[in-house]
């Protein structure tokens, strides 16, 4: 265990960044934005290279044995770090909330899961609640609206933190979104298994986003953002979609989700 204060005094807390399988495969920019933000907030960042997926798809599909195996892999990988930070509410909630439930009959792994859960944070809430950090000299003259992803909102209580961070971005105006806390219809496997229902939900959501007149849609969970960006683009919308971390890291002038590099 490297939960040592020597590292803290040497150069801030040592943070293990778990980027999530979706960010790894689909949007590396979010991972690099997270590194920038954590370093700006005084952390030493390490990316454990053996990371894969947190196991959420197995957990949500009822494959508990599979979820347990993947959880054990992830716990062993991440437990050396003083903090573990994840740029996704639902993956952070899997580690923080559901790992301990998975091992409720296994005292050894349960204890390890609880210890990891206590040190694991979603990125935006970590920056505000643990590091007390707000961006300085980040400017983006644009209007944006915010979608609160359900896992982050209801399992981790993330609501105020992204708004506080974004309020510190010069020139960025945040417009209220009707039904900001209503699910976008992603739901992991749900969106392909029950595609027609998912589509009806996201179509309604895309209309609410359009109705804000905002240029940007921001959020904290890539799954939801891909669902929303994909629907907005299919509907011919010009709304550009970013993960909040990208905006905070000053990458808002780069390509949005789905824009060719």
């Amino acid at each position, binding site marked *: 265990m490297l939960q040592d204060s020597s590292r803290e005094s040497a150069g801030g807390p040592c943070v293990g960044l778990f980027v999530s399988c979706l960010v790894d495969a689909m949007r590396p920019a979010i991972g690099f934005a997270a590194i920038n933000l954590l370093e700006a907030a005084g952390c030493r960042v390490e990316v454990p290279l053996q990371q894969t997926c947190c196991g959420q798809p197995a957990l949500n599909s*009822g494959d*508990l044995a599979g979820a347990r195996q*993947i959880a054990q892999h992830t716990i062993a990988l991440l437990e050396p770090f003083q903090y573990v930070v994840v740029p996704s509410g639902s993956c952070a909630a899997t580690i923080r909330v559901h790992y301990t439930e998975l091992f409720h009959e296994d005292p050894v792994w349960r204890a390890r899961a609880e210890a990891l859960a206590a040190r694991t944070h979603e990125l935006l809430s970590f920056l505000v609640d643990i590091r007390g950090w707000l961006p300085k000299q980040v400017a983006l003259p644009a209007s944006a609206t915010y979608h609160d992803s*359900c896992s982050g909102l209801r399992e981790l209580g993330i609501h105020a933190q992204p708004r506080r961070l974004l309020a510190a971005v010069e020139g960025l105006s945040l417009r209220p979104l009707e039904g900001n806390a209503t699910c976008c219809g992603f739901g992991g496997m*749900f969106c392909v298994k029950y595609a*027609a229902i998912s589509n009806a*939900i996201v179509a309604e959501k895309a209309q609410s986003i359009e109705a804000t007149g905002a240029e940007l849609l921001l959020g904290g969970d890539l799954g939801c953002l891909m669902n929303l960006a994909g629907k907005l*683009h*299919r509907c011919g919308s010009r709304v550009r979609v970013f993960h909040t971390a990208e905006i905070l890291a000053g990458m808002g002038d780069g390509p949005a989700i789905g824009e060719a590099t």
Partner: protein
Amino acid sequence: MSGARERLSFDARVRDALADPLLKVAIDRTTGNARTKRAAAMAAWPGFSSARELGRDIKDHVIAHLDHYLVQFERNARASGAQVHWALSGPEACDIVVAICRKAGARTVTRSKSMLGEEIGLPHALQEAAIERVETDLAEHIIQLAGDPPSHIIWPALHKTREQVAELFHAHHHDPGTLDSIEAMVASARRELRGRYLAADVGISGANFLIADTGAVCTVTNEGNAELTTTPPRVHIVTAGIEKLVPSCAHAMAMLRLLVRSATGAELTQYTTFHCGPKRAGDLDGPAEFHIVLIDGGRTRMLAEGLAEMLRCIRCGACLNHCVVYRQIGGHAYGSVYPGPMGSVLTPMLDGLPQSKDLPRACTLNGQCQEVCPVAIPLPTLLRGWRDRIWSTGLESVTVRQGFAVWRFLALHPALYRQASAMAVWMMAWFARGGWIARMPLAGGWTRYRDMPRPPRRPFIAQYRRRMPRP
């Protein structure tokens, strides 16, 4: 009509529901109104969260001591002159009700709305026994005319727009009048139903609460139809699930505050009635016979199977009104008596998991149902429990299981995982036009309705390795 719908697959029922634009209008009107009013009621009630904890604790206490409170209720109900019957199953309960009706020589019964009655199949049982059933709740009256099952536990006719209701009344009512306003439609239904109340031989109601220390039955309605159903006929039959017990009237009041605000946003219903025993000497009105049928119907099995928290449910409907899935597909697509999140937990228990395995899975696990539940039922956790059962009992398809096995193997072998994801990302790029993929093999569920952003040339970990100096 309902039978034909139930025989369709879940996907087919969903397709029908999504193709019906009037259904969406009807759902949005009623659930939108309900959400707005509930939100206003909660905003004006700073004590909600502590009231919710109290409500949860009352229900948990009663459920943990069902044996005690059932016996106490039975003793006090008998002392008040009620006749108490016990039914282990729905069919048994129907037999008891039909036998009471026959003994009373009943040709016509009036019924006030009760989801339990639907659950046990009472309308069908009465029809089989050739006893005419008159539904007196306005919405139940509407769906009886239409031949539909209920589509919501509070507003059974939620799937009908007011325009459709006007058409129905015009076709079926003896004296419909102009029907050009909601008031005129209500007046027409009132004219239609008034005579039926007085002509009925038996009145059947449900129960919102069974009060153990007095043996009384509490019903809440907004139309007064329960009172007109239970008072004029010579015989009143209550059908109630055993989980409706509360220790005392004070506990019923605590639950009532949660129930009404969560259901309609009002502080109280128009009518809150306590039915305690038959007509006594000197009473001006009331039934000569008062029967209470206490029904298990799988409830004790729920206790044994890890669904005890579901027995807290007070049938307020808030989880339906806030469910993104219910709001798109409505109640009938669920193909069961109870729709929405609470229904997706109950139906596998009532109808069997193989027949209803879509319901716990057709959910995004967004958690809003649990957030609005007035007795804090962990609905997403219970739905996950059914998913676990689907997987562990082999009800998941072989294709999905094999897919997961491959994915799990890769997730546990990072080097192979890196190669596989690099290859997947490389192949996906073949289907991209600009930054987007509009169509791709094996991704039809996604690309049929939305575009997929083009993945990067290399995954994050590969890029990170190249950028960062090796330790």
